[in-house]
């Protein structure tokens, strides 16, 4: 049963037994995680060499908005590093003996719980840290450990629970409903464009197994139709599995344990369908979780293709017939952190947009240095902190969009779309429309006389 805990700005499910003795449990979890994962190597380096130069402060949109020193990435990371130093290094142990060093208390954990969910783990600060300290990694780890003592925003845990022990996906869509939706979308496409685009379901041996953010089935049918249309015109071999058709992985936001379980379900579904590749829909964190698949499945994990990459390759290979007329409105592109920060997917969407748009403008800064939408790290689904998300975290983003003058913002990420819509609503940008990339691609595809199917 959900109840507002009052301690945090978000709702937390408190389970009996976890409430007492939290510091001890936290440290136990810390010990276990250090033993069985690889965070130790980074923590050790960070705990040793942090320069405390505050360069990260200048790159953090949260600190820029609030001006509260507590929001400086380095200081936030120090919350966890201090625990690490105190309990897991010889120097810390010695200092604790010699001086009255700090000890881990409930209040301290509460402070961590609040701070680490203010951070969206966008990892923009890593770029400016002279020592390459990955504050996103620290946030990731801290949330993992906090989750082990029960500090998880309810919104996140509910999603995962739905996925792992509920219907099987975060939006609780039963397979039958999925089939219905797909048929509906097929009809829709037929109706609008007059082409017979298939949504192949449970086709064994398809090259790509499709994992979109499952919310797209409910909220973003255009994106899905765009995806299907691209597959249709390029003749791609793909399928949607009824066993698991959800690319969302909220484990990435609070627990490696959950992430592992979800990723293993993805792996199992691909194996069941004898697919060869994981095709991720337009979603940042789903793509990043998929990229992490080898961590959980080992070296024989299926390769991952993001839909943006697929479409771009098709375009570059000339397999994507486009109409002559381009989209006239001024549009801009928002780089989802999870796709762009490491420099992995930045150029592909731009190339596509240039092909279909008449008035494409860049935000500044962009690509790897783009600001986060403000709802990263899963915070977008925590509705009770909407004011914080849109007014503080999203302020910088709203300014950016305003500066471009674009009326159309392309955000190839389910979370970003939701967050950006709210940001625009709350920051007086009601006339700005947030769309997915494939929504636009769909409009521009030239299905032609052959029904669009490319000569094979």
């Amino acid at each position, binding site marked *: 049963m959900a109840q507002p805990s009052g301690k945090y700005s978000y709702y937390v499910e408190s389970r009996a037994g976890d409430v007492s003795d939290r510091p001890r449990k936290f440290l136990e979890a810390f010990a276990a995680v250090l033993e069985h994962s690889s965070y130790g190597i980074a923590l050790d380096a960070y705990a040793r060499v942090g320069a405390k130069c505050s360069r990260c402060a200048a790159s953090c949109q949260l600190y820029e908005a609030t001006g509260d020193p507590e929001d400086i990435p380095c200081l936030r990371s120090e919350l966890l590093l201090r625990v690490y130093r105190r309990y897991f290094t*010889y120097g810390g142990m010695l200092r604790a003996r010699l001086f009255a060093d700090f000890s881990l208390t*409930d209040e301290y954990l509460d402070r961590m719980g609040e701070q680490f969910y203010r951070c969206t783990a966008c990892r923009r600060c890593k770029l400016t840290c002279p020592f390459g300290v990955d504050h996103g990694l620290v946030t990731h780890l801290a949330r993992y450990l906090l989750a082990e003592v029960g500090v998880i925003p309810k919104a996140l845990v509910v999603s995962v629970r739905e996925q792992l022990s509920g219907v099987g996906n975060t939006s609780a869509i039963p397979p039958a409903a999925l089939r219905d939706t797909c048929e509906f979308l097929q009809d829709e496409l037929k109706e609008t464009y007059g082409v017979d685009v298939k949504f192949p379901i449970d086709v064994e041996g398809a090259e790509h197994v499709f994992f979109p953010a499952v919310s797209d089935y409910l909220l973003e049918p255009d994106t899905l139709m765009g995806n299907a249309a691209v597959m249709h015109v390029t003749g791609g071999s793909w399928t949607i599995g009824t066993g698991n058709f959800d690319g969302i992985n909220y484990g990435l936001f609070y627990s490696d344990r959950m992430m592992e379980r979800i990723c293993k379900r993805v792996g199992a579904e691909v194996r069941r369908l004898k697919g060869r590749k994981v095709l991720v829909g337009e979603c940042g964190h789903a793509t990043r979780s998929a990229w992490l698949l080898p961590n959980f499945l080992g070296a024989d994990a299926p390769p991952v293709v993001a839909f943006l990459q697929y479409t771009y390759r098709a375009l570059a290979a000339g397999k994507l017939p486009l109409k002559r007329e381009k989209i006239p409105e001024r549009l801009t592109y928002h780089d989802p952190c999870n796709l762009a920060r490491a420099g992995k997917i930045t150029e592909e969407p731009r190339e596509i947009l240039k092909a279909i748009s008449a008035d494409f403008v860049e935000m500044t800064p962009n690509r790897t240095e783009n600001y986060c939408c403000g709802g990263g790290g899963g915070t977008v689904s925590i509705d009770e902190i909407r004011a914080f998300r849109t007014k503080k975290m999203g302020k910088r983003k709203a300014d950016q969009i305003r500066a471009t003058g674009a009326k159309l913002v392309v955000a190839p990420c389910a979370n970003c779309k939701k967050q950006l819509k709210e940001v625009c609503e709350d920051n007086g940008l009601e006339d700005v429309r947030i769309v997915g990339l494939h929504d636009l691609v769909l409009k521009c595809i030239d299905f032609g006389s052959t029904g669009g199917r490319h000569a094979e």
Partner: protein
Amino acid sequence: MTRRLTALKTVLWLLAGVLGLLTVVRFLRGLGATTALTDTAPWGFWIAFDVMSGVALAAGGFVVAATVYIFGRERYRAFARPAILTAFLGYAAVAVGLLYDLGLPWHILNPVAHPQHHSVLFEVAMCVMLYLTVLFLEFSPVILEHPRLQRPLLVRIHHALKKVTIPLVIAGIVLSTLHQSSLGSLFLIAPYRLHPLWYSPYIWVLFFTSAVALGLAMVISESFFSAWLFGHKPRRELLANLGRAASFVLLLYVALRLGDLAARGQLARALEPTGHAALFWLELGVSALLPALLLQLPRVRSASGGLFGSAALIVFGMIGYRFDVCIVAFARPEDMPYFPSWMEIAVSVGIVAAAMIVFVFFVEHLRVYPPERLPSDPCAERAGTVNSRLSTLDAPPGPETVRPLLVGPAAAPRRYSLALVLGASLAVALLPATALFGEQVQRTPVAAPRMLDVLRLPASGRPAALVLPGDLELRTAGLGPRPALLAASRPERRGSVAEGDPGLPGGHTQGEPVRALLLDADRDGRTVLFAHDAHVERAGGETSCGRCHHQNLPFDRASSCGSCHADMFLVSDTFRHQRHVERLGGNASCTGCHDGAEGAKTRAKARACDDCHRDMVVADSVVAPRAGGLDGHAVGYMDAVHGLCVSCHEREVAARPGELPDTLADCGTCHGREDPGRLRRQGPYLPHSARRAQGLSTLDPRPSTRGPRAAPGPYRVGARPAE
């Protein structure tokens, strides 16, 4: 328990760090730089401890093996594995220690290639080598038991080894008997050096008997120690039996030792009030008499403290016995005693520490102790289960009681490597200069200069002179203010500035009091007034300070003057630097002979003697300057004169045989055949330590061989053009 083990291992790694650094130094710099060994003490701590005591301390292996395997005392089987492991590591430590002690350790296998079977050492070496192999084979089944080594070939070897256990054990016992006793036989060849209280033709019997007792004592102490370390209960009743056996062996040893003395008629010597007699009784008491009597008492035997204490007495006493034979009672000159350098001790301790690290490693990974004796699995620490680590969190709940944890794969390496680094750093900091920079020629010991008041005489147009009030003017000439040189210090005048002192030279009635440094580096009474300003000026102004003061040369104990004026203290018979300085006008003359106003005034930069002394080597001179003499110094007085006279004598005798007596060129012809002692002009050079020992302390004015200082008179410089 785990903490105790961790703490111990940390200390052991620290000691291993010390060992590691000393290893580098030992092999880079040699024995002289690292040990206190001398030609009269060629065997020191390493032989006495690492080899003599090490072998004896490892005697537990063969004693227990005999008890269990030969005499069928199954009850003691639990002691067999640790005892054999201890023995194996002990012998390995002996071998490693030997590598440090041997001058040419890479020749350690030469005894196999070039056996010399008349040498006791050869027998010892062969036995130790073979026994090390036997011990390895005896112990290897414990290794081969390991679950990860269950490969077909290894399993077959394991079975084969099990079959030959008894032959191996018997071979081990025979070899041990041989070399344990032969370690004593090593000293049979030195009847004139080993004190009669220790020297005995049957010393090898004594060594063997004591080794058996020591072996038993080692098993007892080792059991108690590992029980303390790994937190299991020692088997006290069995150990008490071993103690009783040790006591009987010890009584036998005492009887043999005293009986031997009596038989050789040396018993009376033990009762004389000499240091050696006292040492003899102390050693015998601690090593044998006292523990033997104690262990005869059931009350002592049944108490852990009593048993362990008695065993410890035996161990320390028997080590003492080996030290006495090898070092203390072994004759060497009284003025050249031997006391080990800290590095020798640290290397030995480090080797023991390394052996203990290996021991703990084996205990943690193999079934050295029967499993039921270990209440908790020591392997758990490395087993990787977090739960076992979390057991350190056994305190009651609450954040204050959360004890620190160390997890992750790097936790142990992190701790022990820090200890290692710390140990190595400490060791290098304690190294003497010789070990760091190599053995160097002893330099003149230096005392710090003293500041005192002198007078600067005003001078118009010519450089000022520094004067000790009341003393003669120290000559200055030519180039600027000069440091003044005193023939002998005048203690009674130091520090007194008397204005208008009538002793002032040159008609001056007063000088400007200034402070100057009085350098008397080796306190031999010949001092230099150091004019600091002059040096600053000549060396290039303020920034030149670094040239002298920034010779912050670690470990430089010699005169800082000497680092530029490198040859100022060199002893030479004919060339009297001092005399030249005096004759040529004090320090002003430096540049007269040495090149350049700046830079070091070394011999390398000096003019050759015959540059001035043109008549020294005339065209037909009979003086034959020795070309490239062995020591490279100036020709000594004796050589010079001998070169003058003797070469001519020899030449003439050869030229006119029969005309002149054959003995014309003999020393006795000139020096007096009947009193050769007359030839001794002067004692040869003695190092300062020896000089001090003979009452010729360098802090006293050196007995002058020069006579009173001559007034500076005109010095005729041969063909040198007049200036």
